[in-house]
């Protein structure tokens, strides 16, 4: 993974309520009680995140925890009350209207929970909309939009209106629209939450397929922990506007930073987040049934190891770093590890 930071936010606050600005200058580090006393809502409180190029960064939390507000601060749809945001090294908050419009037209895309399609435009016109507002001519923009429509698997529906499509199909249009300008940074605010579970699953697969082709930098929001661990490289857990922990799914499960995170991760099926590398034991002499990579999920290798009579070797970058036994796998599966 390339580790250059594409988007960084430092000490970002978003407080709703009367006189929120002056309140924060008087009280630079307000606690929850201070806010409540002044009838203010701390939608985002001192958020620090760094989004690295090419990663899928998931922001996870219950409804009302401030995820949408945070992501809207990152795209400056919402003006933060305090803090700094840097996009590709440039200060996003000091940009004027024209610069901001330029960045959004070329570098950012966003997908919305309720799809946010324009009802008076067809699928193709919706997908072409970001190009339309840039004044690109009809033929060019519809060609480009058509590619996107095909990419998301809606070929043949391009002349339909949004109301004629199912929820899943509408969100595909939303995805096509957000990708048509070939953005570097892709925001998705609970894109699949409004869909039925089966469709949601299908859309997650579709999303992974797209990401494997496109390699975007992604900020993905969800309230569904299973969705988060399926998709995330790293997860930020939010509660009451505060980021509780930023970590890989596995770290979250193994080393929760707060009780809240621990509570959250308790019922996750651990075999879906824990990798072979985390449960290795020192290499012992004897026979081995085979070799697995240290990054493989226990879930994926469990049946293989359980079925064998001997432990497996665990490799990292071609080097053997330990062994994994049947017992260790079973411990993970039944939640003892």
């Amino acid at each position, binding site marked *: 993974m390339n580790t250059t930071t594409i988007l960084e936010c430092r000490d970002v606050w978003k407080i709703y309520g009367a006189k929120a600005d002056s309140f924060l200058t008087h009280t630079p580090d307000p606690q929850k009680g201070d806010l409540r006393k002044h009838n203010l809502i701390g939608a985002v409180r001192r958020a620090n995140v760094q989004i690295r190029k090419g990663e899928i960064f998931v922001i996870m939390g219950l409804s009302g925890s401030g995820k949408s507000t945070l992501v*809207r601060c990152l*795209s400056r*749809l919402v003006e933060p009350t305090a803090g700094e945001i840097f996009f590709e090294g440039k200060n996003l908050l000091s940009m004027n*209207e024209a610069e901001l*419009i*330029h960045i*959004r*037209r*070329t570098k*950012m*895309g*966003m997908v*919305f*929970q*309720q*799809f*946010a*399609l*324009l*009802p*008076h*435009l*067809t699928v193709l016109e919706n997908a072409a*909309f*970001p190009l*339309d*507002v*840039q004044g690109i001519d009809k033929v060019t923009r519809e060609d480009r939009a058509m590619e996107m429509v095909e990419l998301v698997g809606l070929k043949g529906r391009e*002349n*339909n*209106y949004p*109301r004629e499509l199912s929820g899943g199909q509408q969100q595909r249009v939303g995805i096509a*629209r*957000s990708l048509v*300008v070939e953005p570097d940074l892709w*925001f998705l605010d609970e894109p699949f939450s409004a869909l039925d579970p089966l469709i949601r699953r299908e859309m997650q697969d579709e999303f992974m397929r797209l990401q494997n082709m496109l390699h975007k930098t992604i900020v993905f929001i969800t309230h569904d922990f299973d969705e988060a661990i399926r998709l995330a490289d790293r997860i930020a857990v939010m509660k009451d506007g505060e980021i509780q922990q930023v970590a890989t799914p596995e770290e979250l499960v193994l080393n929760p930073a707060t009780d809240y995170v621990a509570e959250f991760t308790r019922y996750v099926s651990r075999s879906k987040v824990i990798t072979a590398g985390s449960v290795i034991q020192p290499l012992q002499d004897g026979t081995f049934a085979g070799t697995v990579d240290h990054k493989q999920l226990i879930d994926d290798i469990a049946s293989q190891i359980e079925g064998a009579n001997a432990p497996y070797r665990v490799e990292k970058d071609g080097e053997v770093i330990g062994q994994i036994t049947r017992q260790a796998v079973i411990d993970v599966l039944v939640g003892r590890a």
Partner: protein
Amino acid sequence: MPRWLTSGRVFWLALFAVTWALSTWSFQLYKALDARWIIRFPKKWQLELDGAISGFLIWLVEDAGFYLFSFKDLTRAMAALIEAPYQFLRNLLIEGFSSGYGETAVQLAPSLSWIAIIICIAAIGLYARDWALAALVGCCFLYLAVFGQWHSAMITLASVLIAVPIGAVGGLFLGIAAYRHPWVDMALRPVLDLMQTVPVFAYLVPILILFGFGPVAALVATIIYAMPPMVRITIVALRNVPDEILEAGHMAGCTQRQIMWKILVPSATPTLMVGVNQVIMLSLNMVIIASMIGAGGLGFDVLASLRRLDIGGGIEAGLAIVLMAIALDRASQAFSERKYRVRKSGNLIQRYPLSSTVLFFAIATMILGRLIPAVQTYPEALTLTTGPFWAGAMEWINVNFFDTFEAIKLVILQGLLLPVKKFFTGIPWAWGIIATGLMAARIGGWKLGIMAMLMMGFIAASGLWGKAMVTIYLCGVSVLIATIVGIPLGIWAAERPKAGKVILGLMDTLQTLPSFVYLIPVIMLFRVGDFSAMIAVVLYALAPAVRYAAHGLGDVPEQMIEAGHMAGCTKRQILWRIKLPLATPQLLLGLNQTTMLALSMLVITALVGTRDLGQEVYIALTKANAGKGIVAGLSVAFIAIIADRLVNALARGQRKRLGI
């Protein structure tokens, strides 16, 4: 204290008792104390606002100027701006285009033939929805031709066609300004409130003074009257565009202007079309009233027939108004419900089949019309008239049922109207102000109380107390009767879906009729007076009572009713114990609407001889006394505003109690 005698009840009982006592004995009190101020507001304290307003208007018209041009130039320019397209439409629909004047005039092109106009309106119906709508609106217009109403109807239509685009576009821009700038919103809000409550006659007078008698003045009045709802609906429609759609626009990199015109306005179009429908209906309503200041057309025909006591002619023209209203309403409503459809491809004719058809018929009938005049203008020999039939029918009714009607009228007059009138007109003005304040404070808090006292004080100080009380009495009685009739109808409609469809359909139609129309049958059956006025007001104001009752009952959650069934309620208990209590906020909103409609109709019933504020406004209109008209109009508006705030406060309290 017995349990039923809560402090609330004591308050209301006491208030009523004192008011009743003062009302009954106010005259004796005045005699005993020899204090005439008790029943008459002292002359020397009277506000002389009407004189000031009239003076101001005269100054405006005669002397006011803005450096380069005078106020008069401004109104002239506005008049010319409206006049030109109006004249064009008249030429297109009625007179045809010609150059030169009088004897030497040369006709360049005839007006659109009646066939072309009917085909055009049917095509609009087809475009907006389907063949059924096309047939409906086509038949409505065919009626106008066959029954000899064509000429007047086209004058009315031309006025509507001018007023609607100006009203709709003007309202849209004002609404957009209010959406974007909070201060515009703040400034517009009280103006809109007033515009909706000031009776129409009241601003006819200043307009008459500024623009002179004639179609332009009528059009200006119509536009002013029809615009406020469009402004309101625009603000609401824009605010109701989902945040996410707006954000999607921002993320696509839209500029401010693109956000407005590519995101907000198109997304809000269905709601905006509801606003346009309102503008159309209000314009039609007002164009008819405005026939009094020179609009001509169907309204004028009705008015003239009524003055001549030509019953048949009045009904015929009235019916034409009704059909036109229905056609315009259904067609414009269909537009707001219209779904986006896949566009057709092909050449120009294939892409625009309807426009091509209309154009074809317009040209074909124009050419044919030169040879066969009947194609151009519906032949007079073929017009039918139902006038004698209606006149006969009315006469028959009057001959056979005169005594019955008189008896009914007498019973209601003596049993209800006169006692209530006596009660209200007896209330001494000073106590009236205090009682209104107490009532308002009790229901809506002290701020509302003070506001109500100030408004009632204004009415008293303008020397209009007595007439205001007549207005309140007539309005109160009418609202009471409308509620007594309307709520059971609403309940019936909610409980029996089949009957409901008929009832609600009927109410829809009643609501599309211009207020003027209600006067026709009432005058014919009951002649002039308070009773006739009341009947017309009840008919006009009935619809919201029925509708809100039906919706209120229909919206009671299914679960509550199931819970009632499981608790073993009978049908009657479910209605009285569950549905009605839960529907009270809706019923109160219906009451509010009924009151507002009743007040607006009451002013128009001045034409059938009531002696209330409406009459005051109407007299001011006939005498072109702007100040008097505006003061009386403001008084009506204040009564409306107090009633509106009171009922809304009641509804709010009720909602809070029910936790919804």
